[in-house]
């Protein structure tokens, strides 16, 4: 299929080209770093090079003699600027421990990258020179980088907490039933997996620019953020500026993947310094800085056990997690494991369930949400350990899944963990993925290669996933102790010329909301998508909003847009009925016009109604002028996308090199607004999961020194390391929203890492290799092969 320009009406489901593209393709779009304001001071943060130390002294005076430097401050100098610490919005348990976290450290640094001073200068170069001149004396303390070591409290990082354990969170609806299931099981299997830390690596680093109006006390803050609305509220509380005096704008934002879903020290600093200096303040992160100062993802150690009957039907799932919070709790750090907590039973019909998570502080960069947040981890664990179950039972990977799938007719399905899955057809997606991947031919080739002892072995890995997204029903968030709601706001207005303006509280950074929201509105109103303008990411234009993360934008924000559109139509209908002198019931709205049923010549186009609503010369009594309506949609449930991915790898058994030979993904995100955009999300999502499986890991040495501080050490994959993907979809609408949509932003990442590792293990199964740690680098794979061969040699 090729992309087309859509005709008005019936727009939904077309592969419409994106409105966003021309500006981005020509350099016209403006990212934060592009907004240089005359007179702005450039800020550079002086960061701790050590992971854990007392600060003995910070001397900023040498910076002051660098030409161009205007001011420099230590953490202590700015202590009085803060009305509160940097926020954590998710105290998951009432007794959760959270250390005070100021934008600049005052007494102690707790990770390499912790800020200790800030230098302001008239140019970026001068500010860097100034930063280099600041002299800091540290008294190093032993660092905690191992999670078990953290839990032992050998070294307590935050003295005032008395322990490194932040919280223990449990979800055990029926512990006795779980124990009984394990006692009665015909088969039990246990998986122990390490979710290595990942660096999100949006290609645009972070950046912030604050422009003050010193005399009227207002501030405009531009940030490379996913969350302008949440940021505004949180900065008001942290910096002590009234919420009404802060306008936050997210201009073009170069990717986020969760890393820009936060309230960062630099944002608070820029605002506080703009207040203090009465001048615009600009800070642009460097890539090396981003590898330390921007949150990291994953960082969990998982133990999962399955109990099953003789046929391999799972009777219980038991999970224990040890999660790495890093040095401090950022915005939703403690909640990330909870987003996976309900999903360790995966796509399977599991009667009883138990989960517990212990979360600890370490001397490393704080963790937080990274694409999938908790759900890739959960999916990985269940989709890996089920392979062990297949082996124990003696059936293949597809068969063990079929035996355990929740069947299409079981939806809506109440899970043992307490969720209600909206809809699903899991087996259909598996069938389609197997068919598309050419499974039979692959197995034959695999057998040949095994037979002939080929140096390059073939492996096939399956991953069937589901996830919960569309964050989130506000009442569910309340039950999880999250301190905000999960609704989304939209306003739709018809302008006098019949053009349409949409205001959304979502804040895109690559997802194409302008295109998709236009399509939703155009489809309902019968206008062209080009006649719809979508305004977003500016708190002065869109005062209400909860922003973009957790694959929520379409299934919450897009649905709000649809509801608001329908409200506009309802009001327009009343006006049209009045104008045509006909009862509302006798009018129907089709193809952008209100038409009398049975008498098509009595008709009024929507544009004419809009003009009448605007002039207000002849409206029904009591009806206000203009056509505008809003919706604040609080979803009744999450949405639950699903799918099956099949990965085929070639493993060079001499070098350990793993190459992706093909990758097939069949995803179901319900009704698709724009399949072109859906596929793009799937491609990018798969790639980030593949990257975790094969390439990426944030490495720290035993002293907490980060070893992956550039893109030369941290291996974000390039085009040359990846294949083209085969994608397809099934469509199982969600019954919980009027568009029938589910999320797709994270699904690819959630499904892909286990498919890759399963494929590697499948390739190496004849050697007795059934597990492979991530990332499966050539060295790691080669070592495992050598060890296995050594064992073989010893055994024979």
């Amino acid at each position: 299929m090729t992309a087309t320009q859509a005709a008005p009406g019936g727009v939904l489901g077309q592969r419409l080209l994106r409105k966003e593209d021309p500006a981005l393709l020509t350099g016209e779009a403006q990212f934060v770093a592009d907004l240089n304001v005359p007179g702005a001071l450039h800020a550079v943060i002086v960061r701790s090079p050590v992971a854990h130390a007392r600060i003995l002294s910070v001397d900023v005076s040498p910076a002051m003699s660098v030409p161009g430097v205007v001011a420099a401050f230590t953490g202590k100098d700015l202590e009085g600027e803060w009305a509160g610490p940097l926020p954590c919005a998710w105290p998951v348990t009432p007794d959760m421990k959270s250390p005070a976290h100021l934008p600049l450290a005052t007494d102690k640094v707790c990770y390499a990258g912790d800020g200790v001073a800030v230098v302001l200068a008239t140019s970026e170069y001068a500010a860097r020179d100034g930063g280099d001149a600041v002299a800091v004396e540290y008294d190093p303390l032993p660092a905690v980088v191992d999670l078990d070591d953290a839990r032992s409290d050998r070294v307590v990082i935050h003295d005032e907490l008395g322990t490194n354990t932040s919280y223990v969170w449990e979800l055990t609806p029926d512990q006795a039933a779980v124990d009984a299931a394990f006692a009665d099981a015909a088969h039990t299997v246990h998986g122990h997996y390490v979710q290595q830390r990942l660096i999100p690596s949006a290609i645009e680093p972070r950046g912030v620019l604050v422009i003050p109006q010193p005399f009227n006390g207002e501030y405009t803050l531009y940030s490379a953020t996913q969350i302008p609305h949440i940021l505004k509220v949180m900065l008001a509380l942290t910096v002590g500026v009234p919420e009404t005096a802060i306008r936050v704008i997210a201009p073009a934002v170069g990717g986020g993947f969760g890393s820009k879903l936060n309230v960062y020290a630099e944002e608070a600093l820029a605002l506080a310094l703009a207040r203090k200096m009465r001048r615009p303040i600009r800070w642009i992160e460097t890539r090396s800085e981003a590898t330390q100062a921007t949150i990291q993802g994953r960082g969990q150690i998982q133990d999962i056990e399955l109990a099953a009957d003789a046929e391999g039907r799972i009777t219980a799932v038991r999970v224990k997690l040890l999660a790495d919070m890093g040095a401090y709790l950022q915005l939703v750090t403690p909640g990330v494991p909870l987003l996976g907590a309900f999903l360790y039973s995966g796509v399977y019909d599991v009667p009883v369930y138990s989960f517990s998570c212990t979360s600890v502080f370490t001397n490393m960069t704080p963790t937080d949400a990274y694409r999938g947040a908790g759900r890739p981890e959960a999916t990985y664990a269940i989709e890996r350990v089920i392979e062990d179950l297949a082996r124990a039972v003696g059936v293949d990977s597809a068969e063990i899944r079929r035996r355990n799938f929740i069947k299409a007719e079981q939806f809506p399905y109440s899970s043992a963990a307490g969720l209600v899955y909206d809809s699903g057809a899991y087996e259909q997606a598996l069938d389609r993925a197997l068919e598309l991947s050419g499974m039979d031919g692959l197995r034959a080739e695999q057998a040949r290669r095994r037979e002939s002892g080929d140096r390059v072995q073939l492996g096939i890995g399956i991953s069937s996933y589901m996830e919960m997204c569309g964050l989130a029903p506000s009442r569910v968030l309340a039950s999880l102790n999250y301190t905000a709601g999960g609704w989304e706001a939209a306003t739709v207005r018809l302008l006098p010329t019949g053009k349409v303006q949409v205001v959304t509280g979502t804040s895109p950074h690559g997802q194409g909301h302008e295109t998709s929201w236009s399509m939703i509105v155009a489809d309902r109103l019968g206008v062209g998508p080009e006649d719809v303008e979508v305004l977003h990411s500016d708190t002065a234009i869109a005062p209400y909003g909860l922003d973009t993360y957790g694959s929520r934008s379409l299934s919450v924000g897009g649905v709000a847009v649809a509801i608001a559109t329908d409200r506009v139509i309802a009001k327009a209908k009343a006006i049209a009925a009045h104008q045509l002198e006909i009862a509302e019931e006798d009018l129907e709205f089709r193809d952008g016009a209100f038409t009398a049923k049975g008498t098509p010549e009595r008709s009024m186009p929507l544009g004419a109604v809009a003009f009448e609503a605007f002039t207000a010369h002849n409206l029904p009594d009591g009806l206000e002028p203009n056509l505008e309506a809003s919706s604040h949609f609080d979803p009744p449930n999450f949405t639950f996308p699903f799918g099956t991915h099949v990965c085929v790898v070639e493993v060079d058994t001499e070098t350990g090199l793993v190459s992706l030979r093909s990758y097939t993904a069949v995803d179901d995100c319900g009704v698709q607004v724009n399949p072109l955009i859906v596929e793009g999300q799937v491609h990018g999502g798969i790639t980030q999961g593949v990257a975790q499986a094969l390439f990426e890991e944030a490495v720290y040495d035993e002293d907490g020194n980060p070893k992956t501080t550039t893109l030369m050490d941290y291996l974000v994959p390039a085009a040359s390391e990846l294949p083209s993907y085969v994608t397809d979809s099934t469509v199982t609408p969600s019954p919980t929203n009027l568009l029938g949509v589910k999320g797709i932003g994270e699904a690819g990442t959630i499904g892909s890492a286990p498919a890759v590792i399963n494929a590697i293990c499948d390739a190496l199964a004849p050697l007795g290799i059934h597990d492979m740690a991530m990332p499966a680098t050539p060295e790691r794979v080669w070592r495992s092969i050598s060890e296995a061969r050594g064992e073989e040699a010893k055994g024979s």
Partner: protein
Amino acid sequence: MKVSVAVNGAARTDEVEPRLLLVHYLRDVVGLTGTNIGCDTSSCGACTVHVDGESVKSCTMLAVQADGAEITTIEGLASGGELHPMQEAFRQHHGLQCGYCTPGMVMAATSLLAENPSPTEAEVREGLEGNLCRCTGYHNIVKAVLAAAGAGR
């Protein structure tokens, strides 16, 4: 130091610090911010421009080293209100999401086709290995470049 260059066809001379990187010169002195910065180790390719027709990572070069050169940035690619065929191919094939890698990717892709007008998929993938994209998984970028090559034949 003085640097004289032609940027997108317009000649200019500026007084610059010797250590000023070409990318900062283009962005901060010339005021063309379409060329992006994504790293500090010449790894990401977001800053790719053409210097005398060759694709160059503009963060690897000092402004003064470009003295006398003709430089083309992403702003110089579209002409007469029409997207360049490579930009159009990226649009048609959804080869961009957030768009941050895009200017560099498009510049790298045009010079790839200038050198090899009919590349295979593998050659496109190899040819773009110095340009990182975090959003697209490269699938549609590769498709776009192959389509642009096909259209140019």
